[in-house]
């Protein structure tokens, strides 16, 4: 008898969920909201600023071509290589800047921690899929573009359960 009551209780607990809001995020139509503009780092205090670790953004006016990001990546993913650029900057005599291969990058953000000149940050852009491997290699010019990502929904909690907007 107790078995029958147990099964009815289990079924009842499941049936109650018909009246509860759906939790699923309908991804391509809805996109999650993140805190901030991506992971950034303050080399003076040595502490980062919270944010999503997505695609990098490179500020050409700050980058000196010191290669510290590339050195930091060496033992981790070896995704960063320094390439020649066709721009002339007074602070970048060697005229080299990082080029990032997103087929290798693990998005740990230790290159951002290594940059002492506020030149390399991470952004909220996480949609990096492509049809070819070569399109995953981002040149310094591509990295300079600020992404524009729609952010609509976050988890809402009320009496009828949690849902995405």
């Amino acid at each position, binding site marked *: 008898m107790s*078995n029958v009551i147990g099964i009815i209780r289990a079924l009842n607990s499941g049936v109650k969920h018909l009246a509860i809001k759906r939790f699923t995020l309908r991804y391509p139509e809805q996109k*999650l909201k993140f*805190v901030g503009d991506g992971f950034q780092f303050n080399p003076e205090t040595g502490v980062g600023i*919270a944010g*999503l*670790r997505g695609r990098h953004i490179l500020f050409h006016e700050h980058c000196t071509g010191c290669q510290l990001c590339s050195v930091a990546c060496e033992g*981790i993913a070896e995704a960063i290589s320094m390439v020649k650029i066709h721009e002339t900057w007074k602070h970048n005599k060697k005229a080299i800047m990082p080029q990032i291969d997103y087929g290798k990058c693990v998005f*740990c953000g230790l290159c951002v921690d290594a940059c002492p000149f506020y030149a390399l940050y991470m952004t909220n852009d996480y949609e990096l899929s492509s049809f070819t491997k070569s399109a995953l290699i981002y040149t310094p010019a591509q990295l300079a573009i600020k992404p524009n990502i729609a952010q609509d929904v976050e988890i809402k909690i009320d009496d009828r359960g949690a849902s995405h907007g």
Partner: protein
Amino acid sequence: MTTQLPPGMHLETVDDKIMTLNVGPQHPGSGHMRLIIKVDGDYIVSCDPDPGYVHRGEEKMAEYRNYIQNIPHLERPVIHDSSNILYPYCLGVEELLGIEVPERAKYIRVIAAELNRCIYILYWLAIYGIFLGHSTMFMWPAGDRELFIDLLEAMSGARVTHAYLVPGGVRNDLPSNFEERCLRQVEYFEKRLKEYEAVFYQNPLLKARTEGSGILSRTDAIRLGTTGSVLRASGVDFDVRKKEPYDVYENLDFQTIVMKEGDSYARSRVPYLEMFESCRIIKDALRKMPKSGSVRTKLKPNPKGGNDEVYRRVESGRGAIGYYIVSNNRPEPYRVKISVGSFRNLICMPYLLKGEKLGNMPAVYWGLNYWPVEADR
């Protein structure tokens, strides 16, 4: 056949009644592994686990990278529990390099570790449900896991491999209004957790399958060297967080969950009850945390450890994880040895499966909290 066999080898005597069954090398929810099972009809005569399919040499790799570059690599064995596997490494390196951790960072690390423990246990519970054919118990924890993943994403910036804990504190401070958001989601989760009771744990179908199967007695659990929830389900009151408190666990209010039965049901229930304790720890830590202050001690570039060795351990989702680190005046460690809970729990599998029905094998296997990728490292 008169073929000369090499010394040490012998031919197996074959019994017509016994059949050898290769379970794997497959991916049972966690990583590739194989069980060589001998069955007599429906009953298991012997079981020989065969780990090693996902060995990646993380310990050897750690000898060629400096203390900071090791962080993304060393969390790879358990990506669902990445804060907890980095925790002992950070504690050990801090001791080697003589770094003092700010008070606020200690609390943030405890919160990250407990959130991550919940993520791991919910994933584990989801797979446990689907192993027993209970698809509701797959969907619910997999959905509720999202609450914690979103919280850790706001904290660290990544959904799975966080690389958040570093020697000297944490990578970044908490975002604004994180405390209330965390409190709201954790309180909602506690309410949800109570619903699992009726649909899964008090379900007579689950009880009929798991109660009394694969019993591990208290003496056997200690003798075989098991750890974590397996040990606590056999009635041993041992939790590294209580017995050797690290960071701020001694200031926080929680208790160890112990069950006496030692069967599959107890092993499935202990992690579930531990999630309530994790929620208590998170709420308590949020209350007691200093509201402002530094979160990371600035390290010298390429810090070097002295001629020293250190062993630190913490309680993870699968039991005690220990790191033995040796340094020899270089920026890279001389040796890193990871002692993981999964591997030690695997040892008792042949004992538990002997005489068990083949259909009970998934419940016993997954109840051991065994994670092949972590065990192979």
